[in-house]
């Protein structure tokens, strides 16, 4: 009963809202019809102001059309239409509803003329209109536009909008837009100083560029105030820049961590130099590509899930290839690290060429799922979703790996075999199996790293090549045989790299980092977190 009554009430309310708007529409049409009789620019401008004064958002369409020179008057009956190029002549649309109302030849209609003064008037009118929009996003957009193109005439509509505004964040933006307008108006100095304080508090690049023009065009206390505010903004911006660099560094570090963490298992724990590690990453990326192709052609609805589906598959593919390599090549070479290096390099060449033969040498298109595209802002920091997810993902992989190594029987066996192979064998551990599975685990991790890296890098047969030296650097820098070392190594290398880039350029920064690592290895040949004791000499 209450429910039905509620519906009835809603209907009544809706009706009540519609009726006045119908009445208003007739008024609007009456005003719009005046365009047909307006003979000069000032008359047209008067009509524009009249339209803007109604405050109805329906007038946006004719006003925008007028600014673009698409508002026409039909000569036969002096009715006003919005025109649109179509077919031979011009398609006529109703100025308010936008519905099609026939077509006309060019000769049958007259364009309502427009000049720059008029366009400015229209822009102001439109800005004022959107200030009263129901949608807060539209109001924010209007405030942002007004902030960037300040005009003294904006102050009054902004004052009105500020008085009506209920959302605090939008209100702050409106006040900033008003302050920007005050600065270009001829208001007294005290007002301007208050406006500078307000804009200085905003503290971003737009505020800085606005204040720069104010400083150039004013003198006396206003100029000094602007200079002081700019200095303040500059110092906060420098902090944000450092923050942005740290974020880029962390992001690069997470990529390095992903690429290196599998190597930390095969090289760090087992002592196997696997030069084909980068190719495992590549196989993971190509698995993602194949999964996405299948999804695109057969199950388009599942596209957002493609990465989740690709993860286990990439792990299995890379782990299987790793298992084959270990059983087929590496197990004959234990204890001969230099030979292992050469043989796995050969394997990497074969894998690369195999992928090149199957998929071709060009980059493959791997798409971002919707939840990984786009970005958001924290203060002045721009954070893209895919980078953030990769960071989260790399930390998850690290945590899982740490758990496997330290808390599971398998991890215990792995560590036992590494520490003392013969003793472990005597205790009944099947060391060849542990070797094979450890290597498969390391390769599988590289495979799922490939899934993540396919989101930020080109998927080509050379994908792995680019990561192999970096990964070795991370593992060696962090200390062989130590997962925490790999974590610290990856993030510190990433951050150092990104901090060097602005000063030295991307390539030189990388060279400097390489040289620093080479020097670092001189100082601490066993890495940042060196294993101590007998394990070192084993």
């Amino acid at each position, binding site marked *: 009963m209450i429910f039905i009554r509620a519906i009835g009430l809603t209907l009544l309310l809706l009706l009540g809202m519609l009726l006045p708007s119908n009445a208003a529409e007739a008024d609007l049409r009456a005003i719009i019809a005046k365009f047909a009789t307006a003979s000069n620019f000032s008359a047209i401008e008067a009509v524009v102001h009249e339209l803007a004064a109604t405050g109805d958002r329906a007038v946006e369409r004719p006003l925008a059309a007028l600014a673009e020179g698409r508002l026409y008057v039909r000569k036969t009956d002096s009715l006003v239409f919005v025109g649109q190029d179509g077919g031979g002549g011009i398609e006529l649309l109703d100025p308010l509803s936008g519905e099609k109302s026939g077509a006309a030849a060019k000769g049958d209609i007259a364009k309502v003329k427009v000049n720059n003064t008029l366009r400015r008037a229209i822009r102001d009118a439109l800005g004022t209109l959107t200030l009263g929009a129901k949608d807060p996003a539209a109001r924010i957009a209007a405030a942002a536009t007004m902030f960037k193109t300040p005009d003294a005439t904006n102050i009054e509509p902004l004052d009105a909008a500020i008085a009506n505004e209920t959302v605090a964040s939008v209100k702050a933006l409106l006040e900033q837009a008003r302050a920007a307008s005050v600065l270009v108006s001829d208001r007294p100095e005290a007002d301007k100083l208050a406006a500078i304080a307000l804009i200085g508090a905003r503290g971003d690049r737009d505020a800085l560029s606005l204040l720069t023009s104010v400083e150039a065009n004013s003198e006396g206390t206003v100029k000094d105030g602007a200079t002081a505010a700019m200095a303040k903004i500059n110092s906060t911006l420098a902090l944000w820049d450092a923050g942005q660099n740290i974020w880029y560094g962390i992001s690069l570090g997470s990529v390095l961590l992903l690429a290196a963490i599998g190597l930390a298992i095969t090289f760090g724990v087992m002592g196997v130099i696997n030069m084909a590690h980068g190719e495992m990453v590549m196989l993971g990326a190509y698995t993602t590509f194949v999964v996405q192709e299948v999804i695109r052609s057969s199950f388009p609805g599942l596209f957002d899930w493609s990465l989740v589906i690709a993860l286990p598959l990439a792990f299995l593919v890379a782990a299987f290839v790793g298992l084959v390599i270990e059983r087929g090549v590496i197990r004959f070479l234990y204890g001969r690290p230099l030979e292992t290096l050469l043989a796995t390099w050969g394997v990497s*060449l074969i894998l690369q*060429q195999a992928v090149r033969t199957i998929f071709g040498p060009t980059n493959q298109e791997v798409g971002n799922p919707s939840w990984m595209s786009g970005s958001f802002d924290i203060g002045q920091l721009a954070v893209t979703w895919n980078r953030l997810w990769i960071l989260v993902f790399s930390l998850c992989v690290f945590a899982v790996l740490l758990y496997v190594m330290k808390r599971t029987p398998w991890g215990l066996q792995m560590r036992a075999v590494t520490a003392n192979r013969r003793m472990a064998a005597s205790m009944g551990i099947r060391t060849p199996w542990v070797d094979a599975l450890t290597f498969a685990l390391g390769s599988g991790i590289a495979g799922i790293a490939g899934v993540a890296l396919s989101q930020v890098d080109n998927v080509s047969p050379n994908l792995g090549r680019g990561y192999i*030296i970096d990964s070795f650097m991370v593992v060696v820098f962090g200390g062989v045989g130590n997962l925490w070392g790999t974590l610290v190594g990856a993030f510190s290398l990433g951050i150092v790299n990104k901090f060097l880039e602005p000063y030295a350029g991307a390539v030189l920064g*990388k060279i400097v980092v*390489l*040289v620093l690592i080479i020097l670092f290895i001189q100082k601490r040949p066993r890495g940042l977190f060196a294993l101590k004791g007998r394990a070192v000499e084993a």
Partner: protein
Amino acid sequence: MITGRFFAAGADRRVAITIFILLAVAIIVPLLNLAVSSTSAFYVPSYVVALTGKYLCYALLALALDLVWGYCGILSLGHGAFFALGGYAMGMYLMRQIGSRGVYGNPLLPDFMVFLNYRELPWFWYGFDHFWFAAIMVLAVPGLLAFVFGWFAFRSRVTGVYLSIITQAMTYALLLAFFRNDMGFGGNNGLTDFKDILGFNVQADATRSALFAASAVTLALAVFVTWAIVGSKYGKLLMAVRDAESRTRFLGWRAENVKLFAFTVSAVMAGIAGALYVPQVGIINPGEFEPSNSIEVVVWAAVGGRGTIVGPIIGALLVNAGKSWFTGVLPAFWLFALGGLFVAVTLFLPKGIVGMWDSWRGNARALRAASIAEEAGTDPDVPPAKIVRSAARTPGDWSASGPEPQPAE
């Protein structure tokens, strides 16, 4: 004394024969190219001369690597860097010889500098218009880099795989550096479009033959030098460091100095190889710094047999001839073949072709000795005599790890 050893039997005789063959080739091939008419069956076409000349440079590079890897146990994955540095030094001389004949006709600046809006010659290009200066730089730049790098690395006892990886990082860093346009070495186009060397046209058949002869003679010289180093008391020390570094150190030798000398000599040899290579192929670009190139050199030495003097030369010639053939006939399969070669050599031919041949011959000789001893009625339980000489010259025999896999260092 040295001449006595030179004409002795066994491995030393093999070195003598190699040197003799190289010197003979240095005379005969240019003769067959220049003096014999092109219709004759004995005529050697010019492209064969250029190609073989290139292979001889590669062989010299492989020999240089063998000195450090085969005899000193340092697996350098950065020898391509020394090769390329030598090549760049020679390339800079050749660029300066172009003079005003470049596309832009600038008498002072090479074309790429005009293109990149250089006002004047960078300081490090001074002196390269003289051949003697360039020749010194060919030796000095790779030698100095190897000395400084090795001094740091060996002093802090970076060994084994770590050393391999940082040498790879070194050549990678140089690759990135030389790709930059503002380094002043032509960016990713490198140096090319050479005209003259010592006043002779580099494209002319006679010059090509002379360069070929120079490569062959230099290789013969390098074989002799390597043989002299390896056979000397210092060579024993090199092998001692290779087989048991800690023990050598405990006996009172400074292992790092031993390694540093071998590394520097080897780098200089690689630099010379690069300098001979550049005028024969007519270009040097940063691609020569690619880490994969340096690793390919390792497989040449491995195929032929590391720890032998002749092996790397044979390996370099065979693998490169194979590469030329494959890339002509089945271009897509060359990388499969190369990758398979890496795997097969490490698994089945750890001592390479020459090493395999030696142990096969050695086994045959030991079997024969054993059967003679049996006929003579001596105790058949005496184990066959171990071939000490070749064992000492091939790595792994003295430091053989057991069948049980061991975690690497």
